[in-house]
């Protein structure tokens, strides 16, 4: 696979470290059901057969965490953006 790093251009995926699902969000640690929310956050996954938004770290490049949109059926990559842009946008909403 070649991941289109927004900083470095398309690079082989060996340069990256995979983390996993980029759609889960760390819940509040102080909520009444924090433990249940953290269980969901840490352990359960949609695990879709199809488009998957996932985190990759460009260890062999710019040290940016990227959110890559990739189809798990055929590995086709739709795009990659810096994670901080995605996660900052979350905070804004």
């Amino acid at each position, binding site marked *: 696979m070649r991941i289109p790093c927004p900083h470095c251009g398309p690079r082989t995926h060996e340069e990256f470290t995979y983390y996993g699902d980029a759609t889960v969000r760390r819940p509040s640690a102080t909520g009444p059901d*924090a433990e249940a929310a953290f269980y969901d956050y840490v352990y359960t996954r949609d695990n879709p057969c199809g488009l998957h938004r996932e985190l990759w770290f460009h260890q062999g490049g710019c*040290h940016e965490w990227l959110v890559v949109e990739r189809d798990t059926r055929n590995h086709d990559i739709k795009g990659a953006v810096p994670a901080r842009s995605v996660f900052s946008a979350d905070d804004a909403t």
Partner: protein
Amino acid sequence: MSSRIAQGGAINRQQVCRFTFDGAGYSGYAGDSLASALLANDIRLVGRSFKYHRPRGILSAGSEEPNALVELRSGARREPNTRATDIELYDGLEATSQNRWPSLKFDVQAINGLFSPLFVAGFYYKTFMWPASFWEKVYEPLIRRAAGLGRAALEADPDHYEKSWAHCDVLVIGAGPAGLAAALTAARTGARVILADENFVLGGRCLAERRTIDGQPAADWAAQAIAELRSMPDVRLFPRTTVFGVFDDGVYGAVERVNDHLPVPPEFQPRQRVWRFIAKQAVLASGAIERPLVFGNNDLPGVMLAGAVRTYLNRYAVLPGRRAVVFTDNDDGWTTAADLVAAGGQVAAIVDSREPVIVSELARRFPDIQAIAGEVNGARGGRHVESVEVTSRTGTSHRIDCNLVAMSGGWSPTLHLTSHKGNRPRWDEERSIFVPDMLPTGMRVAGAANGDMTLGEALVTGFRQGLTAAASCGFSGSMPALPRVTEESARRVPLWRVRQALGKCFVDFQNDVTTDDVELAEHEGYRSIEHLKRYTTLGMATDQGKTSGVTGIALLAQRRSIPVAATGTTTFRPPYTPVAMGALAGHHRGMDFRPTRYAPSHRWASELGASFTESGPWLRAQWFPRAGETDWFEPTCREVKAVRSTVGLCDVSTLGKIDVQGPDALKFIERLYANNFATLAVGRTRYGIMLREDGFMFDDGTAARLAENRYLITTTTAHAVQVYQHMHLCHQTLWPELDVQFVSVTDQWAQFAVAGPRSRALLQRVLDPRCDLSNEAFPFMACGEVALRNGEPARLFRISFSGELAYEIAVPGHRGDALIRTLHDAGQDLGVVPYGLEALNVLRVEKGHVVGSELNGQTTAHDLGFGRMLSTQKDFIGSVLGRRANLIDPARPRLVGIKTVDRNAKLAGGMHFIPQHAQRSIEHDQGHVTSVCYSPILEQWIGLGLLTNGPDRHGEKVMVVDPLRGAETLVEICSPVFIDPEGARLRG
């Protein structure tokens, strides 16, 4: 060389190559393959089959060969299962037949053939079950000895391999007429083109056919095309290069046989090179593979594919048999008859399975050859074909003497690479072939690989696909004038098997799969094509079913009375042809399997004769033996005692170091670490623990506050990279709003522990005298910038892993060697000793510090005695799930110290705790011993362990057992801190 034709062929008759086969000497010419040279020398019997050990010869002229497998070369360079049809002949070539005993001509195991009624598909699933113990002892060893093919070398491969990358706009796979045409039109647009072909000569079937293009021989046209391509700067030609796999995003794996045509690669040159071609577009022009016809004894040496016969005639100038019978179900077979006649051979008959009207029409063009509308029922002969039995459509039978049967069951597109990404080909009922359907992104197909079987079609589709591929990359050009080519026809009426067979009819030659096997599998319910394949092993041999797959599918369809399209195909997977593991491994083997990282003091330590050990990728000094010390024990004890009594030096540069800066640096590390850092003053260091978000221990280390907004944190050697990535993940996805920057400086700083009661004295000799190291000015856990006597800057940390008065001093990496020498020299009269990992381990066990054996990913902060460090005042990674009842359960195995009750007894890591009088069984398992050492201070073996309710059991006596090695001993449970529990020494 009795079968060599006097004239012609793409061989160099000036260059004779001598070679041996099974020890006998022969010769051929440069440009020969081993197969053509064997045929030229009238060698027909080349190998034995897998199951029945039947005699086998040469079936094909390419990489699809199932029969002619040999062991090439010898000794450490022995290559089993090498296809004679693929090997480029070189002077000194050594080949040996395989899978036979005692000799190729007389193979004892050919007796298997007599039992063939027993050895049907899947017979082994039905027997060898009684008695159960006989499988490993009796049946299996016999089966294993009989099975297998060639013998692997037993020594390390002396040759080298390389890996390389190449980028291009258009990759053309296959350099036959279609591939050359595609490369020409693509390259003429200015696109960067790579043209790869598995053969050692580019040109494909242009070399094997007596056809003309624009009035000149096809081989000449190919030579001109190659010359034109070679003249263009952005074109790279790769002969001897197999594109073996299609991977995601335009990555094509290829192996270039750089020096396989020489006895031994030249010095400093690789044997093979694995390429990753990164192509925007690819044109697959891999041609087609001819199908054998299925009749009795169709595996006898002398029965060959008709197209291969033409290759041997026209390219290699070899007459594979003087008297031939051609058996075909299509027009192409007739071309072979014509070529045989043209080469001076005799064609005893053409047997065409189609309607008499078609046959008689074609026969008009061959008045001298007997044409029979009918079928070959079987071949006869011992180790070579001697005659065939033929039945005509009118019902008359003939026996025709011959020593060559050229058979053609039509051609199957070589479309394997189109389906490596999971796309399955489509059945074209009209032409009775599978053709590519959905293609990998960026791939297009030209010529026979797409089912366009004639030379004219190959050129047209090649030109067109080359042009469109280039256009997709933004290059434009125009179609050249289409060349005039010899007319030909690819009409076919498929004959999947003869109606009446005499003898075994092989479908998969190499795995000895017959029509009977296919029928039996279907009959027993193995009806899915995948079940058929797996049950009969059809298509699973080293040729991967190149000549058998389609026939197998068609026979299954026929048997089930369903269309071939409904039967489907099995999946094609990389590699297209087998690839040497060494080529895929490249340089990463032996000592270069993984990079070796050297600590800054490595050279100094080597000079002192240190023994080294691996610590992840690092090599670290284990101990520094002195004269007379012969094992690890003496130097280790001496080094430990020195640290506890004088001063020791140890390289700790391998610990991860991360420099964290910014207005939000404190906020950031507060969220990373489980314990409190808010109260840490500038110029002070604190021990910290990190949890994973699931609440288990992640890593430990120190954080030194170098300035108001600057921290230097350390990680364990093992987790340096993970912690760094984790910090970025946290920053970039959890708290992107924090104004903090950090970078790994592990490699930038050399760091040494200076430990022992005289460490202060030693440092004072090395540091600028103005540097005040008194307890008041630089107390335990202080940190700061200092200067060496020569004015060079350094960092000093008063931290201790040994429990002694100790410091760690850091200088820029390149100054590490100088500093360790300075320290060592300056401390001679203080009794300074270098110490290694073993002593370091003893010192930390004596002090109860945890390392990887305790931080094993299964333990919690509570398990390791850090429970009280966990802050309740803040949210940090792991704070919520770390509070779960099961993670703080006191009954979990928790950290304790252990010492042997018998002071002479030994301990070992991995022993398990069992209550003193309990049975040695799992119900009584209470944890395990994580770390042990002989403490030269306590003069006995001590250790750390994780014991159920451990901290509440100090003073209790428990057994530690090692049933694996038959050892056990009684230990007393104690505090993990064996030495100086009050910490007076480290504050001294």
